[in-house]
């Protein structure tokens, strides 16, 4: 999707209706309706155990909602396999980085291009694209390094590059900022914006409020698996309910 698409059109790239997931008797995600518009950066926040990652797993088809429907670009994708979801244009990163540690950095990215896109790309195209993506995330200098030798920040960048290599239209970022220092965090926030500028829609789970507030256009708040608020960063910051949830958690943590 080229940049500069008028925002007013508000094409819904992702929609969820009544998305629910039980683990045993416990509802990890319960009856959540949500939508993501094309070109947006949506933040997904909530206390620990609120069901954020479970929701990501449901969208990326690691888990299947029961009941509930998830639509990508208007098409029902419930029950599809993760690789199908990926090839349709949804890529993700993981809370605990899941790169291919024994492979060189470049190989990690190439794998994304190989399998995440439709077949027919030539080896040369793939190699060029992988190099471009490494440049884009700032890892060009390390393309031959085994992935396990990277710092955490660079591993996260690599994971983003690998996800981008699958040519997604929607990118799910699970706690990109966690464990990064201030400088790295600023770079990561900048990276997120640049990805959006490429025309890729982003949904990000984040605990770092500063990052969420400055990057996201819209925020969805989960608590005990339910959606309790949704709105612009300002609305969320002023929402009594949200503040209560977070303060409540703090009070719990203090006691």
């Amino acid at each position, binding site marked *: 999707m080229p940049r500069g698409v008028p925002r007013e059109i508000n094409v819904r790239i992702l929609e969820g209706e009544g998305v629910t997931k039980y683990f045993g008797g416990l509802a990890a995600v319960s009856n959540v309706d949500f939508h993501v518009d094309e070109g947006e950066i949506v933040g997904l926040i909530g206390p620990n155990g609120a069901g954020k990652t479970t929701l990501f797993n449901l969208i990326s088809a*690691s888990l299947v909602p029961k009941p509930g429907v998830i639509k990508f670009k208007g098409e029902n994708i419930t029950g599809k396999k993760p690789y199908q979801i990926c090839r349709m244009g949804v890529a993700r990163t993981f809370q605990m980085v899941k*790169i291919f540690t024994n492979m060189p950095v470049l190989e990690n990215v190439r794998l994304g291009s190989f399998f995440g896109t439709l077949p027919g790309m030539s*080896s040369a195209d793939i190699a060029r694209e992988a190099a471009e993506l490494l440049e884009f995330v700032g890892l060009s200098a390390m393309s031959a390094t085994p992935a396990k030798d990277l710092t955490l920040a660079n591993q996260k960048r690599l994971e983003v590059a690998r996800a981008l290599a699958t040519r997604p239209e929607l990118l799910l970022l699970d706690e990109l900022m966690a464990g990064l220092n201030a400088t790295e965090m600023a770079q990561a926030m900048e990276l997120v914006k640049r990805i959006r500028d490429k025309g890729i829609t982003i949904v990000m789970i984040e605990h770092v409020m500063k990052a969420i507030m400055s990057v996201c256009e819209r925020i969805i708040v989960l608590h005990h698996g339910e959606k309790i608020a949704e709105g612009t960063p300002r609305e969320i910051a002023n929402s009594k309910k949200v503040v209560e949830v977070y303060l409540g958690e703090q009070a719990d943590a203090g006691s």
Partner: protein
Amino acid sequence: MDITTFTSNKRFQIWGISLLVVLAALATLPQWVGSYYVVLLTFILMYILITVSWTIFSGPTGYMSLASAAFFGVGVYTSAILFPMTGAVLPLPLIIVIAGIISFILGLLVGALTLRLKGIYFAIFTFGLVLLIQRFLLWFEMNITATRGRFVATLDNNYIYYVMLVIFVATLLTAYFIRRSRFGLALQSIGENEEAAAHIGINVTLVKVIIFAISAVFMGAAGAIMASKLIYIDPYIAFNPLLSFMPVLMAIFGGLGQFYGPIIGAAVFAYLQEFLKTEFPFAYMFTFGLVLVMVMVFMPSGLVGMIQRLLASLKEGPQEKSTPSWTLIFSFLFGILGGLVSWFIFRERRGARVHLKVGGVVTIIVIAFYLILLLLAYLGELRSGYFGI
């Protein structure tokens, strides 16, 4: 399709030419050696091809399959039924193809069934499968068909050798091209992180099941041709659990890091095995066990990996952290056992002079192997400052 950046064209050519030379040598071999060596080489080729086909799937993914004996046995029985002593039902090449296809289908089935099983569960499931088929067949043959064993039509040794060579080449080519193709990359990424692999668009299920089944084809084909070498077969011979462990051991012995690791491992090991088996059927078992233990303890990264590491450590100084003193105790323990086995080898064949000579050679090989390992262990400890140097 060339997708591997590491391998330049020149290296590919060198390998290709040297491979052709080896192949030419293998093809003309029966012209200039006796039938003993032809038979020996048939066995060695069989072990290499089974090891390589095991490595196709289990090497990159890390799923330790112990189903090799099942696929091999299926091939043997296909041959036994379609190519009996009383006269062939179908021409042999067709039987081998059929055996390959049946193994492929069994591979698909096992692959699809075991998708959820990881790590050790996969290993023991596949091993259980071998035993289940063996036991069921035994019961079936005794109670339903009322034949404990079957006789297979015999063939000329050279003929068997050439058929084996064809399967061998097919296995090597398939393994090589799978390794270099997208499938190879996909398998490797599955071994590294299956979940991540699925989320970058790899159809993990399909890749795993298909490759597992392909690796089964060659084992089935090898079993089909080996049946006429074995002549008499029963479920115990066809589904010998030892054959499930052999490829794993040989591959690890050679080293899983490189394509040629398992080939070298299988070649060395198979030769030693056939040699020991014919000369000292009794002590063979002991030596086999001893080597197995020593390989696992001293060289888990294999022959190739060990040599690489040794070269690296000589060049760059200490590589590994210090090892416990138990190693030395263990070494001495096995040293004593090594001495014992040599003694038994001598005792077993004391009568014949020729055998005494061969026994001496084997003893020296065993002791030398042991000493080298001990030296390596010692060197490793020395270099890492274990003795305060």
